[in-house]
């Protein structure tokens, strides 16, 4: 029991009737299938726009639209399927986990285990395997994170090491010994698929570059701006998810692309609740939660502004987004780490 840290509603002091939680957690294939169909339609439309715009300047906005539609939902779908909540039918869930994780650039088994660590040890330094940067965040970390360079630097050697069966201590920490062979074969399968796509390109066919590689690179920063604001500037090493995690408002497009995960505190409190029920979950617990932060753009602009000022040793109070008290420093002061409730 020594290592047990309950990062859930109970440890955050949030209460909700068990019957309602179960009702909200009910599974169905329908919402996941509808989402997938809508995603495919958007991909077809924006992909056609890219195809028609090739050779003109119009390819830039078309690629931006297609890249966003390809990359953000692939992250969101991979996340939802790692929880096993996107569909009721298991094989549908696992199939979409593979497809979306390949696009997102993370081996699916590793995806699932590292994300489990994130839910057990949300935003706990040295324990949360999906805490990708040191906090408080500086400009260099922001750049590495948002461009996707950090993800690439982290994931590429991980693929190779896991494929060779040379698992790092960190991977061993959150993966049960009996499951390591799956990580090895999963990494090999992913590398084989990536290798096949490279072979297609070498054979003179450019479609993997135009429809997968470039859009994935273009859409990466938008995906990473969504994930960045989930926990940045929030309190590390606390059991209260309301202090470590941020929910934010966003428009219908943001909610669609991100599969309602802007309700992020709610998701951490009750990870059993599937994406399509998160708005209902929000209604049920909102009187126990802080107000969500302003929209995706404004939250990101304020985060960037704070990060920039921190690097310049200027005051770091954001105009309106939530920040842990120790994130706010006076001009010239260095932010202090404060740990709270970390056992």
């Amino acid at each position, binding site marked *: 029991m020594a290592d047990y840290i309950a990062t859930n509603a109970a440890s955050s002091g949030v209460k909700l009737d068990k019957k309602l939680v179960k009702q909200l957690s009910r599974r169905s294939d329908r919402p996941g299938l509808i989402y997938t169909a809508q995603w495919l339609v958007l991909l077809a439309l924006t992909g056609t726009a890219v195809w028609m715009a090739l050779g003109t300047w119009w390819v830039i906005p078309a690629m931006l639209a297609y890249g966003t539609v390809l990359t953000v939902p692939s992250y969101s779908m991979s996340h939802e399927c790692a929880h*096993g909540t996107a569909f009721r039918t298991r094989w549908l869930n696992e199939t979409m986990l593979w497809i979306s994780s390949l696009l997102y650039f993370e081996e699916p088994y590793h995806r*699932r285990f590292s994300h*489990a660590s994130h839910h057990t040890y949300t935003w706990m330094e040295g324990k949360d395997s999906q805490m990708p940067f040191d906090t408080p965040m500086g400009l260099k970390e922001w750049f590495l994170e948002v461009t996707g360079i950090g993800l690439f630097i982290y994931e590429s050697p991980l693929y190779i090491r896991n494929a060779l069966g040379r698992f790092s201590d960190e991977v061993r920490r959150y993966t049960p010994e*009996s499951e390591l062979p799956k990580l090895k074969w999963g990494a090999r399968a992913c590398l084989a698929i990536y290798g096949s796509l490279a072979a297609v390109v070498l054979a003179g066919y450019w479609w993997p570059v135009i429809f997968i590689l470039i859009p994935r690179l273009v859409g990466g920063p938008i995906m990473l701006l969504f994930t960045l604001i989930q926990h940045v500037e929030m309190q590390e090493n606390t059991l209260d998810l309301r202090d470590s995690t941020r929910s934010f408002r966003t428009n219908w497009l943001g909610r669609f692309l991100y599969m309602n995960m802007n309700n992020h505190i709610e998701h951490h409190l009750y990870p059993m609740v599937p994406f399509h029920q998160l708005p209902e979950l929000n209604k049920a617990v909102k009187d126990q939660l802080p107000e969500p932060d302003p929209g995706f753009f404004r939250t990101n602009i304020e985060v960037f502004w704070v990060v920039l000022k921190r690097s310049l040793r200027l005051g770091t109070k954001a105009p309106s987004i939530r920040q842990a008290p120790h994130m706010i420093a006076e001009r010239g002061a260095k932010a202090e780490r404060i740990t709270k409730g970390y056992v």
Partner: protein
Amino acid sequence: MSENWVRACATDDIDEEDVIRFDHDGQTFAVYNTPSGFYATHGMCTHEEQHLEDGLVIDDVIECPLHQGRFHIPTGEAKGAPVCVNLKTYPVRVDGEDIYINTAG
């Protein structure tokens, strides 16, 4: 086989497709009402320490609330990552309106 039958609860105490927690003699159990009958397992998930009483019963499967790992309730078999170690099961007997568990396993 040793036996130690203990009354866990009344049949009415567990809703259909639901699970409750029963603590006895320093051990914690999960008692289920599934479409195929009443069952009992160890009360904690085998992945990390998490009470299964807060889990979701879907047909004959219990889904853990923390990482959504799944077990087949009648056999305790681990059915979906991140769980990979089976759950210990306990014999159950329904006597009138009462549910008994053989806590000796």
